[in-house]
């Protein structure tokens, strides 16, 4: 079995930044990559938000409703939790922008086992070090 660990590092805000949103959807696609791989091969991504990338993650976003009619970053994060994706958000950068840990979305009510993890930058660096490939968005 060949497991390849990857880190998707998002360092730009998601609204009107297409690539930072694409980082999320590319990471989520790990759920179906096995149809293109040999038996027992896997890709294990982690979605890491650092710097300005921590902006736009908070729950209660109205973008999908009457405001802009686009999918919200919140829904993407909830979907990430639903597919057991490891989502790490930099604690220091959240503090820098005055964002509380309580404001992070989760998909517990939808049955997700995984939650967004607010962690020190040192933990994100450790996950990056463990990764074979790092993709910076």
């Amino acid at each position, binding site marked *: 079995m*060949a497991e*390849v660990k*990857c880190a998707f590092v998002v360092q730009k805000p998601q609204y009107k*930044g*297409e*690539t930072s949103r*694409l980082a999320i*959807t*590319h990471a*989520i*696609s*790990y*759920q*179906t*990559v096995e*149809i*293109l*791989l040999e038996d027992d*091969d896997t*890709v294990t*991504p982690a979605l890491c938000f650092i710097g300005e990338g921590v902006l736009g993650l908070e729950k209660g976003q109205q973008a999908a409703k009457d405001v802009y009619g686009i999918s919200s970053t919140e829904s993407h994060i909830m979907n990430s939790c639903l597919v057991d994706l490891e989502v790490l958000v930099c604690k220091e950068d959240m503090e820098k922008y005055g964002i509380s840990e309580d404001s992070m979305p989760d998909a517990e009510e939808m049955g997700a086992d995984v939650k967004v993890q607010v962690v020190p930058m040192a933990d994100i660096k450790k996950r990056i070090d463990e990764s074979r*490939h790092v*993709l*910076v*968005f």
Partner: protein
Amino acid sequence: MGKLAIGVFPGLVGNMAYDFALKFAEAAKDKGHDVSIWMSGNATVSVKANQKHLLDYSTGEKHLLRLMEKGVEICTCEACTVARGIRKDEGIEGIQWSAMHWFLARVHSADRVFLIGGE
């Protein structure tokens, strides 16, 4: 020789990142590496067939055809491409259309992954 997976995200216009990505891919292929290119975001505009390569205008078709002739594998993100109004039957022949897991599968087997550009 190694396997390279290159994610190309920038559009044809605005900076030289798209041009660099294709030159880089060609140089790697000429050196004997296996090269796969994943087009996503604004880069997907370049997969439309029948581009007129006028002097001073940024186009992609002839460069992409040359890369494929050399054996570079190219795939475009179907969602990004149709979102820009390009249908599959309007695309350059030989370019694959797929979803994002195509790129992750190439990442799995790659020795090196390059992610180029974006807005």
